[in-house]
């Protein structure tokens, strides 16, 4: 009884956290367990209607994935996206942040908004607009190139070019948020550091490389980790622009999982794929943290 009274008396913290925590439990924590269990079964549309037809097949799904050509292709494509896209996003968002941090006039505020705009633009609107720009016959890009007497480029019809086209639009869309993070970090650097460097007679490039960039180490690390995790789950761009084609040339791991799950209703197989992706993300993130440790030691 006294315990019960105590709970009534201390009920407030639980009342505050309950709605959000309950929702997270039902729609995030429990689903992880479910996903893990079904990744060892052959659950599909038939199993959904009749639970007794579901059988445990052990690690069969995981084994099958590694001999599935589409899956292997999706792993290769995802690596292609990450290796080219992530450095580009970091380079552009850092450069733009440095430029925007250069002045404080109204002009710079306006451009901050301009560079941020793509990242808040709806993905379907992006697909519609870029689909038009990339159109082989009527698109603006090919028209501009034709002025330079360059032949029509099949932006989305050839596997390698299509991958690069998707990277271009994902970089365009990905700059905004990272630029803001860099900008916030730049504004947090105390003036006195620059004044000291100036007194020592450092020129602007020296200040950039010896004061600013080292002080952005934490922001760079944060941006690298989040961008890397984001790009490993590269999904929306191929989903809305190419649906993984041509010839699975743009399919990513995340898109592979989505298609297996929601187009072919192979829920067990898709869940196994999602855990492989999860494992890859954890490994890459851990490598990042390791590299950072050895970096700060000296």
């Amino acid at each position: 009884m006294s315990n019960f009274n105590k709970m009534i008396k201390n009920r407030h913290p639980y009342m505050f956290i309950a709605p959000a925590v309950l929702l997270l439990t039902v729609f995030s924590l429990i689903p992880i367990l479910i996903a893990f269990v079904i990744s060892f079964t052959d659950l599909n549309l038939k199993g959904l209607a009749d639970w007794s037809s579901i059988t445990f097949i052990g690690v069969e799904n995981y084994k099958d994935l590694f001999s599935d050509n589409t899956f292997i292709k999706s792993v290769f494509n995802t690596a292609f996206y990450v290796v080219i896209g992530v450095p580009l996003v970091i380079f552009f968002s850092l450069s733009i942040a440095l430029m925007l941090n250069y002045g404080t006039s109204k002009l710079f505020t306006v451009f901050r908004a301009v560079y941020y705009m793509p990242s808040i633009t709806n993905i379907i609107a992006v697909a519609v607009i870029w689909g038009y720009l990339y159109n082989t016959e009527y698109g603006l890009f090919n028209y501009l190139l034709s002025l330079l007497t360059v032949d029509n480029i099949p932006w989305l019809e050839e596997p390698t070019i299509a991958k690069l086209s998707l990277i271009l639009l994902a970089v365009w869309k990905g700059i905004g948020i990272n630029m803001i993070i860099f900008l916030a970090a730049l504004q947090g650097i105390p003036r006195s550091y620059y004044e000291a460097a100036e007194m020592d007679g450092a020129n602007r490039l020296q200040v950039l490389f010896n004061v600013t960039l080292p002080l952005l180490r934490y922001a760079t690390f944060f941006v690298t980790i989040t961008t890397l995790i984001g790009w490993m789950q590269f999904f929306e761009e191929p989903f809305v622009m190419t649906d993984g084609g041509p010839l699975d040339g743009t399919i990513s791991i995340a898109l592979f999982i989505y298609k297996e799950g929601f187009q072919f209703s192979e829920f067990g197989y898709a869940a196994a794929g999602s855990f492989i992706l999860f494992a890859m993300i954890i490994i890459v993130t851990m490598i990042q943290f390791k590299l950072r440790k050895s970096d700060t030691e000296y």
Partner: protein
Amino acid sequence: MAIKKKSKAGNYLVITLMLLGGIAVSIPFIWMISSSFKPESEVLAIPPTIFPENPTLDNYINLFTNMNFTVYLRNTLIIVFFSFIGLLFNAMAGYGFAKYEFKGREKVFYLVLATMMIPGQVTMIPVYLLLNEMGLTNTMTGIILPGLAVAFSIFLFRQFMTTIPNDLIEAARLDGAGEFYIFFRLVMPIAKPIFAVQGILTFIAGWNSFLWPLIIANDESLYTLSVGLSLLQGQYANNFALQMAGAAFMVVPIIIIFSFFQKYIVEGFTMSGIK
């Protein structure tokens, strides 16, 4: 900025680069707006016209007369409304974690953080199966529920609310204020900056929501603007003018809202201590 002596030449170089980059980044937007006012024949003209020669509003009118954009808009606004209720839940949870001592606080908070690490693809299928068991597929509830609680938002609210002085809350308690009164009347006004950031981000996310409505909704009467726009793209594959009008209808409101509130977003990131 900090370096006082800036050469004029350097200044001009930065501004020129910024201008060129800015134009390059805006090309898709400019092209979208311009094409949305062109008649159907003009969008396919070669060479393309930069400004519409015969500007028309037909494309926009078409969205509402021939397509169901009124329905899509209504559904999208319903989602936005409920995501603000979700925002309130997140704020309450952030406050609970920040300002109360209770059993298991750390453990539960770590669980909340752990959900941020899980890629969306892992939970997508089980959540669909769960909603299917509850009979919530093809309902508005099914579209709204899974997205209400956002771990990252709880985390940011907690970070901000930890900085509110305990004495202030204690003083209010001594004056006899109830816990919920304190939250709504004292804490929420103090936490206005973080509410501003989260409010904008919540609006943008709700307005743009696409994948989950696409998975859950079978009936067109439940489609959101993005799902409707992708339907339009499929149905009118070669009517680029209509497509651009649909895209502009989605993008322009967001840009207007953002340009009014952008300073809060930058401040919000500075506040959250990412340096």
